[in-house]
């Protein structure tokens, strides 16, 4: 069958719809057994799938992709395993509200090229946990590894009693097909992790969508921070999988007093601070000025690869390329999101200037995503956080790993990070199983006794303003 054929889309959706019907009859125990089996299968294949992803996409480091697969299987499982997702999930005798979890129906999962196998595992687990069939729609550059991941999960799910068609995957991808799936009347939700145009297409499809926004993570090393520790954390995070995580650090902001010590700490770890000429060379290869976007060819490449491409002299051991800048915006392309081991660096005179610079960076393409601060001053951490427009502000933490939850904090473990309305998303949450449920509420009668005893004629007396009415309404003597 021609996979671009409308019949192919109909076949996929019919299969998902029938799986949905069967899924609706499973109880919590049956559901959890399936989720456990799929987790075990994904975990068992964590290394092979990481290598496949790395070989197929040419992005990142396979060793780091193993850790991503571990987070997507072991840690996601640990986060959701005890969650009630079937039937009555809570009963409050006092309020008379009983909550029922219902599956939402077929989910279309858009998978990014940067984290293909891990995002596939993650989205499959949260869909199965909520009894929703899922259709994996990979990036064109990661079709094989996503298909293999989905197949491994599907075989395990079927063996554990899941419905036929509960996981489907596309083995060829076309824009027309993706759009036809997105707008299909039997599709219930799009889990859209990917580039801006794809996420916008998801939102425009008429199907409810949980999307993500772009990141442009500012990292403020406040002067009370332990500088060597902070740089070590940033270094670990930004070099992880060659900077492919959208929550990875993009710009470092330091006060002048700390500047030299921060630079030394970076240099100690083989980071290279570029001169003006080198910055210009780097801009030319990492940023596409026509598209106003990072150049896709350098995403997830090593610092050495990028330096060679730009004609910048660098040792094989080079870990990071750092550009000291004075401005934020279109005039400084390196102040935007670059998913590679490239950092912008700003020196400012005060806490206020630092926060202002972080606000500029935050609003330059990263609204609602992630911000990071290293500090031991609780008040400054709070002040900084109140000024950021970010779904998650990570403190004294490598932001790549911190934002996805569990390893360094108690955020929900997720490979889909909501960016709120600023990022054109419906939530700032780390998207997880609870977002794939329709929660119904049984509202048992609980009379409002205050309303009962209140003299309703006062509502018709225009001399009674809200303050007077409230006084009478709440009077308990």
């Amino acid at each position, binding site marked *: 069958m021609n996979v671009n054929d409308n019949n192919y889309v109909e076949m996929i959706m019919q*299969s998902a*719809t*029938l799986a949905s*019907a*069967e899924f*609706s*009859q499973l109880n919590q125990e049956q559901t959890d057994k399936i989720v456990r089996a799929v987790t075990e299968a994904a975990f068992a294949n964590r290394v092979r799938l990481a290598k496949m992803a790395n070989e197929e996409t040419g992005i990142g480091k396979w060793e780091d992709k193993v850790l991503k697969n571990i987070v997507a299987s072991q840690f996601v499982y640990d986060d959701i395993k005890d969650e009630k997702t079937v039937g009555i999930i809570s009963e409050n005798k006092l309020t008379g509200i009983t909550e029922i979890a219902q599956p939402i*129906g077929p989910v279309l999962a858009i998978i990014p090229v940067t984290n293909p196998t891990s995002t596939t595992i993650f989205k499959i687990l949260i869909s199965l946990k909520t009894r929703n069939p899922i259709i994996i729609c990979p990036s064109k550059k990661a079709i094989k590894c996503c298909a293999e991941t989905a197949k491994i999960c599907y075989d395990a799910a079927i063996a554990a009693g899941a419905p*036929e068609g509960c996981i489907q995957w596309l083995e060829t991808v076309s824009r027309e097909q993706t759009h036809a799936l997105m707008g299909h009347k*039997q599709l219930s939700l799009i889990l859209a992790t990917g580039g801006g145009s794809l996420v916008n297409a998801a939102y425009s499809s008429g199907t409810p969508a949980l999307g993500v926004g772009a990141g442009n993570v500012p990292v403020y090393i406040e002067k009370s921070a332990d500088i060597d520790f902070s740089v070590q954390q940033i270094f670990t995070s930004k070099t992880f999988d060659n900077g492919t995580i959208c929550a990875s650090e993009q710009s470092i902001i330091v006060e002048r007093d700390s500047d030299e010590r921060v630079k030394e700490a970076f240099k100690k770890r083989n980071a290279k601070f570029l001169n003006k000429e080198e910055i210009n060379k780097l801009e030319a290869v990492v940023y596409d000025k026509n598209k106003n976007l990072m150049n896709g060819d350098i995403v997830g490449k090593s610092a050495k690869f990028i330096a060679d491409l730009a004609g910048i002299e660098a040792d094989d051991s080079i870990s990071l390329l750092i550009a000291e800048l004075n401005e934020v915006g279109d005039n400084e392309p390196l102040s935007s999101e670059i998913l590679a081991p490239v950092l912008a660096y700003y020196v400012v005179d005060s806490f206020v200037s630092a926060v202002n610079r972080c606000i500029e960076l935050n609003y330059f393409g990263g609204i609602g995503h992630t911000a990071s601060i290293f500090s031991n001053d609780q008040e400054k951490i709070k002040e900084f956080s109140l000024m950021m427009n970010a779904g998650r502000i990570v403190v004294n933490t490598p932001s790549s790993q911190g934002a996805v939850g569990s390893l360094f904090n108690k955020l929900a473990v997720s490979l889909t990070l909501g960016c709120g309305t600023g990022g054109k998303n419906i939530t700032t949450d780390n998207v997880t199983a609870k977002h794939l449920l329709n929660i119904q509420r049984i509202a048992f009668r609980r009379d409002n006794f205050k309303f009962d005893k209140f003299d309703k004629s006062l509502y018709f007396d225009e001399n009674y303003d809200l303050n007077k009415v409230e006084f009478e309404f709440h009077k308990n003597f």
Partner: protein
Amino acid sequence: MLNYKEENQALEVMFPSKLDTNACMAFESELIEKINSSNTVIFNMDGVEFICSFFLRICLKTIQQKGKENFKIENLTPTTKKVFMIAGFSDMVS
């Protein structure tokens, strides 16, 4: 495994309580043969507690072959009725 009542080319089929994939695979060809030789078909779902997607596919094939006017699904519990509604058979079970 299945019980049939046949009268004047009208076929009524009674099913076991659990229609899982294994059970459906076991009776599929026999059922299809019976359906082929009948003009009208009724699936009597009395006592059925679980319906797998494989069985829903058999229903789809039956609709395609006999047309909606010659195929009925009867005696559904609320649980099994909801399964058919989710599967998009609302016309058949309303």
